[in-house]
């Protein structure tokens, strides 16, 4: 476990990190994100003591790292930076085996490890082991960078915007690979990025920083659903929700003022209400806004006697959903039951809103923009 205890960093008079407290669990993938100058990289570099805090303590597994030998500490923490961090005068093999070499592993063991790691990152050793970084594509270099960080099998890996200099297609692929790798290896990864999509895709938890402070530190789902403030909202973007339909709940998308009528209304009145609002159905509710049923234009058309009351003809036994249900479940329900709308009610059957197929289609359409 990595623990930041009230960490502050000052350069002269300016405070770049102010009282940061963080706890990163073993095997957790934590992404630090924020605008440039927010202190995310500084925080990362404090973990391997490339930067020393001005005050406060960082613990790794309960041990104060300022009391450890920084060289030893760094050899036990993987470190990945942008592609340029590979040593250009060393081959792929020499780059990867560097930390094992510093740790004085025997030659055979090092070579075996290099081959193992190249396989792991999907680069056949016989083809790549003796190449120089300049002979590799950006994506391949980054894979070597990841392999290098894994070389001595550290528990903690620090990644400082590793994919930022790579073209979008290769980046997506590398992210997927890293995700899969992490599923297998379960390392503690601290990852810095300024790309919110990357953060949402990879993180177990995201730590959003601004001006040297932690604004919100939570799971991606929680951040999307309950952004701590406007800053976070802006960071994740207005459309963020739509991009992740599995994270949307009914209350995010429902119409909150559906067209409704009391059961005592006549059919004529109901037609008037529908025409006025431009809809083809009306929800029937009692005085307490409790949902009773629904009447559609079709139902009304079939009744010749327009003086009848709604209570005589409305359909009971409606499918309803709760505000906190997932939108995807609702979509599934709608297509299974072949219905175009679902009223939303709370546990007391009080009408809260309405979800229609067209609102959903519109939302999903937006997400594709």
């Amino acid at each position, binding site marked *: 476990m990595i623990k930041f205890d009230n960490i502050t960093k000052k350069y002269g008079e300016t405070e770049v990190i102010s009282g940061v407290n963080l706890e990163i669990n073993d095997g957790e993938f934590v992404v630090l994100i924020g605008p440039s100058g927010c202190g995310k990289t500084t925080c990362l*570099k404090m973990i*391997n003591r*490339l930067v020393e805090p001005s005050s406060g303590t960082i613990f790794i597994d309960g041990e104060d790292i300022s009391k450890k030998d920084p*060289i*030893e*500490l*760094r*050899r*036990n923490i993987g*470190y990945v*930076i*942008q592609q*340029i*961090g*590979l*040593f*250009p*005068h*060393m*081959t792929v093999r020499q780059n990867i085996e*560097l*930390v094992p070499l*510093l740790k004085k592993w025997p030659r055979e063991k090092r070579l075996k490890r290099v081959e193992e790691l190249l396989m792991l990152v999907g680069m056949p050793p016989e083809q790549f082991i003796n190449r*120089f*970084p*300049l*002979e590799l594509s950006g994506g391949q270099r980054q894979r070597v960078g990841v392999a*290098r960080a894994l070389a001595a099998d550290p528990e903690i890996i*620090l990644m400082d915007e590793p994919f930022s200099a790579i073209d979008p297609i290769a980046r997506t692929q590398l992210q997927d690979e890293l995700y899969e790798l992490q599923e297998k290896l379960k390392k503690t990864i601290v990852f810095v990025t300024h790309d919110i999509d990357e953060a949402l895709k990879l993180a177990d938890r995201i730590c959003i920083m601004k001006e040297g402070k932690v604004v919100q530190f939570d799971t991606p789902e929680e951040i999307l659903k309950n952004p701590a403030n406007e800053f976070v909202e802006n960071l994740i973007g207005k459309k963020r929700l739509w991009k992740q339909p599995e994270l949307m709940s009914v209350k995010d998308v429902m119409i909150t003022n559906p067209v409704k009528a009391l059961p005592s209304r006549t059919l004529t009145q109901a037609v008037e209400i529908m025409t006025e609002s431009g809809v083809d159905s009306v929800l029937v509710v009692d005085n307490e806004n409790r949902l009773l049923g629904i009447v559609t234009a079709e139902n009304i058309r079939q009744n010749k006697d327009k003086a009848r009351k709604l209570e005589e003809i409305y359909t009971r036994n409606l499918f309803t959903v709760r505000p906190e249900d997932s939108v995807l479940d609702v979509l599934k329900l709608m297509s299974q039951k072949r219905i175009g709308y679902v009223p939303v009610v709370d546990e007391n059957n009080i009408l809260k809103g309405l979800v229609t197929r067209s609102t959903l289609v519109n939302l999903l359409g937006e997400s594709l923009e």
Partner: protein
Amino acid sequence: MVSEYINFIVQRMDDILLFSGQHLQLSFMAILIAISIGVPMGIIMTMIPGMSPFILGVANAVQAMPSLALMGFMVPLLGIGSTPSIVMVIVYALLPIIKNTYTGLTSIDRAIIEAGIGMGMTEFQLMTMVRIPLALPVIMAGIRIAAVMAVGYTTLAALIGAGGLGQLIYRGISMVNTKLILAGAVPAMILALLIDRVFFFLERKVMPKGIKL
């Protein structure tokens, strides 16, 4: 005119070869010593902050001193012969070597240095495994400049009796014999160009393979 000159050269061939040999010997000696002082000095400068302005300042000042005057100072201190002339050449050859060593070692991409430190390299390992290999082409370029300069300055050595091609040139000057001057100057030029080529070749040779691509 040309054939006359060639004849003259052929007659003096023994002298020219002898002086060329001396010349090479003197300049090589000076370069070797300059390298063995200058490169470590450049390395030390990168390790001790605040040292570089001082050393570079001194080296610059020395460089700015007229060579004839410097030689004048050398004689009372070191007498005449090859020692003072080698010392003088060293003094001039030092600056490009120190400067390039320092620049080469300090102008390496920050990210690469940080990667090295972040992976747990000691200062010494960083120097020997990363900084020096990557700076080698720049250091060699400095040595090349110093070598060519050394061949030029060595002609002055004749003034204090160290021999070399300068001797032919001074003789020519005092006898107002253009052919004699040329008999010293042309081989000196050829030597300088040759040395330039040799060091250029060495420079390519030491360039790390991964960078040459």
